[in-house]
């Protein structure tokens, strides 16, 4: 099965509690158990959630929002990314709280329901198109019906429909000369087809979320809960794959995005536990991209990077993309072409231990 199919089928089991301030009946309603698509957005779950709680809600206007341990959740971040970022030790089901009142307008940008989410998605797609093609005309010129079809395919998790419409956009795929050369060598014969040449880009849209912790840890569950977005740096910056005569890896991409962490190049010897995509899939039927690193003779869940003194003050403890912890040596072009979200962005979560 191809990687994008795995990504699209990935889901996070949620246990959604109604905030106590909005419970008007006794006993309080039990939490709603909902399977949320990784590539989706929390406000889109409203139609599924409301029926659970409608009889207990106080009267008035409903504006849905969520929090995790008191942290209001940014609705424009895909559900899977929020989970990877805020639950380094994957909690299943993920316990979050839903609110229908008291929207924190000073922290969260307003969300007027499905429309807001759709426009946020389209704007991200425009941005990705600009990065890959050098302009966003293809997205701007989408017909109304194509736009709707694309959006519905995302809402419904329909990869086939999505690929049908998105291929019309002719968004370039990420090219890596070295990786494709290697691939060609390993194949005995490369059959030329009549397909039009696929446009290639060297610029990859990336959104990086960096959680910084001040205390070192051995187990992921030692990572303190995130209580403020101040602890998370958000870096929205394209990565340009440099065409050199070696493979451009995930590691190389991180060096570009977080140069502060790679001051001491000579000490590069970072190894992080990685999981084969196939193994990850076989392990779980719900969250397809299950993260549990193969437990090696009862050792800790997350192997610490060895000799990871990248810089004396900070080191990367964890990298997660679509719930997977890829090895740093993985070709970045593969990651970019296979683990991207429907908005054509690669969302990467990183946990960094810093000196405090």
């Amino acid at each position, binding site marked *: 099965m191809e990687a994008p199919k795995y990504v699209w089928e990935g889901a996070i089991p949620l246990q959604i509690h109604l905030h106590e301030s909005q419970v008007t009946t006794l006993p309080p309603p039990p939490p709603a158990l909902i399977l949320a698509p990784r590539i989706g957005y929390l406000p889109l779950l409203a139609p599924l959630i409301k029926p659970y709680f409608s009889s207990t809600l106080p009267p008035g206007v409903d504006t849905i929002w969520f929090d995790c341990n008191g942290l209001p959740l*940014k609705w*424009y971040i895909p559900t899977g990314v929020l989970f990877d970022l805020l639950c380094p030790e994957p909690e299943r089901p993920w316990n979050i709280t839903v609110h229908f009142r008291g929207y924190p*307008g*000073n*922290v*969260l*940008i*307003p969300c007027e329901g499905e429309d807001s989410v759709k*426009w*946020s998605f*389209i*704007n991200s797609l*425009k*941005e990705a198109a*600009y*990065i890959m093609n050098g*302009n*966003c005309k293809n997205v*701007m010129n989408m017909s109304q019906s194509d736009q709707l079809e694309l959006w519905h395919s995302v809402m419904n998790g329909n990869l086939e429909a999505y690929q049908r419409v998105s291929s019309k956009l002719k968004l370039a795929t990420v090219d890596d000369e070295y990786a494709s050369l290697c691939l060609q060598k390993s194949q005995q014969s490369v059959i030329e087809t009549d397909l039009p040449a696929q446009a290639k880009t060297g610029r990859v*849209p990336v959104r990086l979320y*960096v959680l*910084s912790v*001040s205390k070192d840890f051995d187990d992921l569950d030692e990572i303190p809960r995130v209580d403020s*977005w*101040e*602890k998370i*740096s*958000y*870096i*929205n*910056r*394209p990565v340009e794959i440099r065409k050199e005569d070696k493979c451009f890896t995930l590691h190389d991409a991180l060096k570009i995005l977080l140069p*502060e962490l790679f001051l001491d190049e000579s000490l590069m010897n970072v190894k992080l536990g990685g999981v084969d995509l196939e193994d990850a899939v076989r392990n779980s039927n719900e969250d397809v991209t299950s993260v549990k690193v193969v437990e090696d003779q009862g050792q800790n869940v997350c192997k610490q990077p060895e000799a990871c003194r990248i810089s004396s003050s*900070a080191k990367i403890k964890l990298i997660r993309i679509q719930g997977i912890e890829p090895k740093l040596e993985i070709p970045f072009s593969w990651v970019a072409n296979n683990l991207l979200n429907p908005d054509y962005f690669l969302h990467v979560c990183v946990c*960094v231990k*810093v*000196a*405090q």
Partner: protein
Amino acid sequence: MMDVLHWDGTLSAKDFRIGAFAFAQKWESRNLAFPPWSWLPCPKHPWLAPPKEEGYLSLEKICISRPNEEEDIDQISQIETGEEETCCSGNEDVLDDATLVQSNHHELHYCDFQIVYSSTFRVPVLYFRAYCSDGRPLPLDEIEKELPACSSKELSKKKWTFITQEEHPYLKRPWYKLHPCGTAEWMKLLFLSDNANPKFEVVLELYLLSWFSVVGQVFGLRISFKISD
């Protein structure tokens, strides 16, 4: 040095910084009734001091309320020769809080502006937020009432593509921004429409001033200057 004919209208991050300083300088030297722009460093990570080279421009508490529904707020500016030049209708009202006539207890609305570099689009982006004199934030539909008629028309035509609301990249609060996807194109046109073929250094000097003279018009802020200066 790059030839403007082959230029795509964009700036590198380094060029943005140079251009920003040039802009702030010219702005201040023109004796506009506006306060000067401040250069603030971009906070990147909570555990690192912000890098000095990365920053953005900030201008606070600009009154965007229009004293008169029909007229735009025009700004008197002085070009290098010292002559006074006014824009369009010959209206010589200077935008100055002290002399602004309030009609019918019309509450004053203010705007904070920020010019932030976008590494995606490689151009400056205008972020803004508006509020009343008591600090109460203004939603977009109320801001719209203050904008010149042509802006509100644009806004209603393509609400979601022209002005978007999103989280400020550094201040992490909801701000509005003017969508930058067309900026590179019209910036290139702006410099090529003049028959002179300026050197890139000149383009850089004037980039932000030219850019702001266009985007500022959304808010009825006009600054005049000539590229051939």
